[in-house]
């Protein structure tokens, strides 16, 4: 078993523990009931996605400066894993919204900017898929990745900059009763830690895949050599 496979098993075990904490340890919300437990993974996935897109930003910036292809591979890995986590955030949020707002989707600033974030990085992946691999594609993708990151603070601060259906910051809120705070905060921080570990493992696996795929493209395919016998001289 490789080190990455062992790391994956560790990350899955941590996520299982986080699941146990969410379902059996965290307090049930007085107003929303059990559905509020969506919060823990919904927010953790969003933060993991921010982290992944930060990897795209850094990888792109380093590639533009140094033309180091390892940085480009980290960026590619971050984008794909970031899109996966943004999808989890969006879908879990939609299901939670249906229960508490009565609609899967409202076009408020938080939801719309998150959808735009998903589209930007899905576009980034599309650019990588459609363009011929090489320096030009990596440079173009780096620019998309760097400018795309502008949407991350917009998503994060949208609930304070504009009036939204989506609730504002919950953790930094004095309204939470102190007796609930410890269990709630522990479950949230533990889930966030486990999700970040999972994201880091996923990015590392993807980086390794991208490295091996790049190597495969560099190695020339074997040339078929046909040896023909020279015609024998006619006597």
């Amino acid at each position, binding site marked *: 078993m*490789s080190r*990455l496979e062992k790391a994956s098993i560790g990350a899955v075990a941590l996520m299982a523990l986080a699941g146990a904490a969410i379902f059996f340890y965290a307090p049930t919300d007085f107003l929303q009931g059990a559905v509020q437990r969506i919060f823990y993974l919904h927010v953790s996935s969003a933060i993991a996605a921010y982290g992944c897109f930060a990897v795209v930003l850094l990888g792109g910036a380093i590639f533009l400066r140094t033309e180091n292809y390892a940085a480009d591979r980290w960026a590619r890995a971050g984008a794909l894993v970031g899109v*996966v986590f943004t999808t*989890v955030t969006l879908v879990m949020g939609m299901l939670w919204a249906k229960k508490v707002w009565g609609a899967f989707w409202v076009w408020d600033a938080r939801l719309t900017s998150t959808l735009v974030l998903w589209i930007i990085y899905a576009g980034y992946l599309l650019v990588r898929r459609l363009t011929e691999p090489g320096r030009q594609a990596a440079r173009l993708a780096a620019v998309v990745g760097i400018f795309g990151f502008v949407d991350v603070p917009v998503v994060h601060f949208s609930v304070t900059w504009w009036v939204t259906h989506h609730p504002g910051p919950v953790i930094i809120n004095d309204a939470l009763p102190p007796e609930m705070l410890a269990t709630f905060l522990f479950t949230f921080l533990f889930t966030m830690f486990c999700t970040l570990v*999972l994201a880091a493992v996923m990015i590392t696996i993807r980086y390794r895949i991208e490295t*091996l795929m790049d190597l495969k493209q560099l190695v020339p395919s074997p040339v078929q050599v046909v040896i023909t016998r020279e015609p024998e001289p006619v006597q």
Partner: protein
Amino acid sequence: MSYLLIAYAFAVALLGGYLFLSLRQLRELERPTRR
């Protein structure tokens, strides 16, 4: 309760599925090719 279960089932399916497929792809790429 059903929305909660659907939400977590979706997350487990997507994250778990992605991780599984990634590991399978990695294993295939790391397998030595016979020439």
